[in-house]
């Protein structure tokens, strides 16, 4: 009896005990680790700090989107790695989405063969570890490409060789004006669409918003080409002989094989998961919805745009964002084939040179963590926005 009374009256006190124990245990582990780390670093004569980021890195990176060489700082090397990670993730996400949507829709095709082929694509590529796929593309498939002198040529504009893929380089004049015009076009499209939505919801008027938007997107940048001095020329790669047996391409942009292998493997692997999401999303829209939409007189396009897509997207987008996040995290497998991403450049080379394990691993993990948390925050915001509002 006494025990029961104690329980009810001191519920707060009773709750406090396990919490206090947990916090204390956690704190003692942290303190234990921290003291050990301090002693170990003291023994090696290094002190905790991020000052090394300003020191000269003195190592080269094979592929960089910003100006970089050995004389730049470790901080700059980190930035190069981060940009490379973002580059391969963006390319991967772009192709994964395209392949994923095509395969996902194909799986629902009424053509038996197409549905089966899509199903086997998913079963094959989903069940092989990503790292093996990267190895396969890099060590097996891309190594089988020809040497530069007999590279596979696409209309003499672009060349695929064992050393990479050479593509024409875009040379812009007044690129800033063009960029501004594209941004302006997107802002205009946003206003056009919100106006069209308003008109539709208030007055029931149907404006051809899609075609107007498309026209805006083409017209505004076109004006800059015609009147504002923006122009675009291409610099094509040209085969050049270095010595009697060594050839290379000059000019253009070289896409290194590491990037191709990584982007290929990432997009083909992630596409299988996106395909499953797309399939689930389309199946998730009930047949009754389409029939109801048809019965109130919407035409086929309107049904797709106003009834099916919004509901399917609500199912598709959250897990797909998750897959984008996974793809970005999986891009860290780059380290296995020496694509200079953040893990290889920073947690690999820079760590070896400076020996600052704690700082460097923490920065790397924090970078990924920031990326993950910002994407999941965006996703929560989006889910809230798209949640079905009961009227």
């Amino acid at each position, binding site marked *: 009896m006494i025990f029961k009374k104690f329980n009810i009256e001191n519920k707060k006190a009773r709750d406090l005990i396990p919490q206090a124990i947990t916090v204390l245990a956690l704190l003692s582990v942290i303190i234990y680790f921290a003291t050990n780390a301090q002693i170990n670093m003291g023994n090696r004569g290094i002190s905790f700090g991020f000052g090394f980021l300003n020191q000269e890195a003195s190592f080269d990176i094979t592929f960089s989107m910003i100006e970089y060489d050995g004389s730049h700082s470790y901080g700059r090397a980190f930035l190069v790695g981060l940009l490379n990670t973002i580059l391969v993730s963006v390319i991967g996400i772009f192709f994964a989405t395209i392949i994923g949507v095509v395969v996902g829709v194909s799986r629902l095709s009424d*053509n038996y063969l197409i549905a089966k*082929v899509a199903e086997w694509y998913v079963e094959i590529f989903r069940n092989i570890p990503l790292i*093996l796929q990267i190895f396969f593309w890099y060590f097996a498939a891309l190594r089988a490409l020809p040497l530069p002198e007999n590279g596979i040529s696409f209309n003499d504009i672009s060349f695929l060789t064992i050393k990479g893929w050479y593509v024409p380089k875009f040379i812009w004049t007044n690129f800033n004006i063009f960029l501004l015009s594209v941004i302006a076009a997107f802002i205009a499209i946003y206003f056009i669409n919100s106006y069209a939505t308003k008109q539709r919801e208030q007055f029931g008027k149907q404006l051809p918003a899609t075609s107007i938007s498309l026209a805006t997107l083409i017209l505004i940048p076109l004006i800059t080409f015609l009147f504002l001095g923006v122009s675009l020329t291409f610099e094509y790669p040209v085969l050049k002989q270095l010595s009697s047996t060594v050839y290379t391409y000059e000019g253009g942009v070289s896409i290194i094989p590491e990037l191709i292998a990584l982007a290929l493997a990432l997009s083909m692997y992630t596409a299988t998961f996106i395909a499953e999401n797309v399939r689930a999303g389309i199946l998730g829209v009930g047949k009754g919805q389409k029939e109801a939409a048809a019965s109130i007189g919407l035409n086929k396009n309107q049904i797709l745009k106003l009834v099916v897509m919004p509901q399917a997207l609500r199912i598709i987008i959250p897990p797909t964002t998750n897959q984008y996040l996974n793809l970005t995290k999986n891009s860290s497998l780059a380290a296995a084939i020496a694509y200079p991403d953040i893990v290889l450049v920073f947690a690999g080379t820079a760590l070896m040179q400076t020996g600052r394990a704690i700082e460097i*691993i923490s920065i790397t*993990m924090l970078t990924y963590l920031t990326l993950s948390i910002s994407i999941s925050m965006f996703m929560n915001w989006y889910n809230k926005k798209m949640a079905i509002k009961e009227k």
Partner: protein
Amino acid sequence: MNLIAKPSRDNIKTYVPIGLFLVSLSFLDVFINAFFKFNLMGFLPSQLSYFLPLILGFIGFYLIRIEFSGVRSLDVLNKNINSNNFNALLTLFTIFIIIKSIPPMLDWFILEANFVGNSKDDCTGDGACWVFIKVWFNRFMYGLYPNAEQWRINTAFLILFAIVGVSFFVSEKLKKYFILFLVFVFPFLGIKLISGGSFGLEYVESAAWGGLSLTFIISAFAILFCFPIGVILALGRRSSLPAIKYISIGFIELWRGVPLITVLFMSAVMFPMFLPDGTFIDKLIRVLIAITLFEAAYMAEVVRGGLQALPKGQYEAAKSLGMGYWRMNALIILPQALKLVIPGIANTLLALVKDTPLIFVVGLMELAGMIGLAKTNPKWLGMAIEGYVFAGLVFWVICYAMSRYSQNLEKKLSTER
């Protein structure tokens, strides 16, 4: 005009034979072209002979596309692969690509491949050099584990399979003891058998372990440990005590937010800094801890899904019977919640198996790592394709079987409810 009338039941007698003939002709042409390198339509101009099978097949499919023909097999054919012009084209493309790709694949895998011999020089054919796999097979399975001691790994796995096999046939009561033995006793016996060092067994350090057996060992231990940790984390995240709740959330989100490779890097270079000077923890154990904690975070989210899906009434009913927190969870909540998320658990385990090759970053070599080692051996250069195709096949069989099993489980459980 009568000649090109729309195919219908009236002209079925003439159209269907012609259509079927044209379709078979187009397949035959592609088939002969692919298998015997002989162009049946070679007498035609090159462009035309290239597209002729497609055109013939397309016309053929058009002619046999008769709605409600009354012939059952024709209706089934039309419905499934020939419902309109676009589908007919897709069907033709798919079949052509399949026919075209069979001979090169067959050549590479079997006909031109080399099976006999024991060095790279024996690979004289154009196809795959399976000699490479044959010679290295032992290494691919057992890593650098000494040949004379490999019976220990075999015995450990044989005992495991035997226990699992027998436990299917014994009574429910005995089964419980089997499972308890399997979870609490066997893993440590097995690891003692493999690592040795006592009972007259030679000690084999973990750096020598490798190959596919290491994949299984790591997967098994990570599964064993990540499951209870995941359940505790999931309960912690749902706890009403704020300190426990937020610590659990922080822990879960930290591991879920970073790639496994950085966690492995951490276990390799950062973790030793956190230990007293001179303490050395075996590399394999560090990797196991890293993978376990990483997968436990994912497991926690899966289990949380099950906990959230349970109706509130279950909690209230358990409480009204006077059950405390632990008894309520152990007897009422978890059995139901875990059953709900078995497919999710299976998927997490599948991801775990697929993640094991990443241990190469700390220098441990399971199957993929051993292939990386073998293909850089000077005597066996240029064997990357064979190696990775082999590893891909092995992993595919394992993962496909797992995913199939989980899908079946899902179906079975969904009908039971």
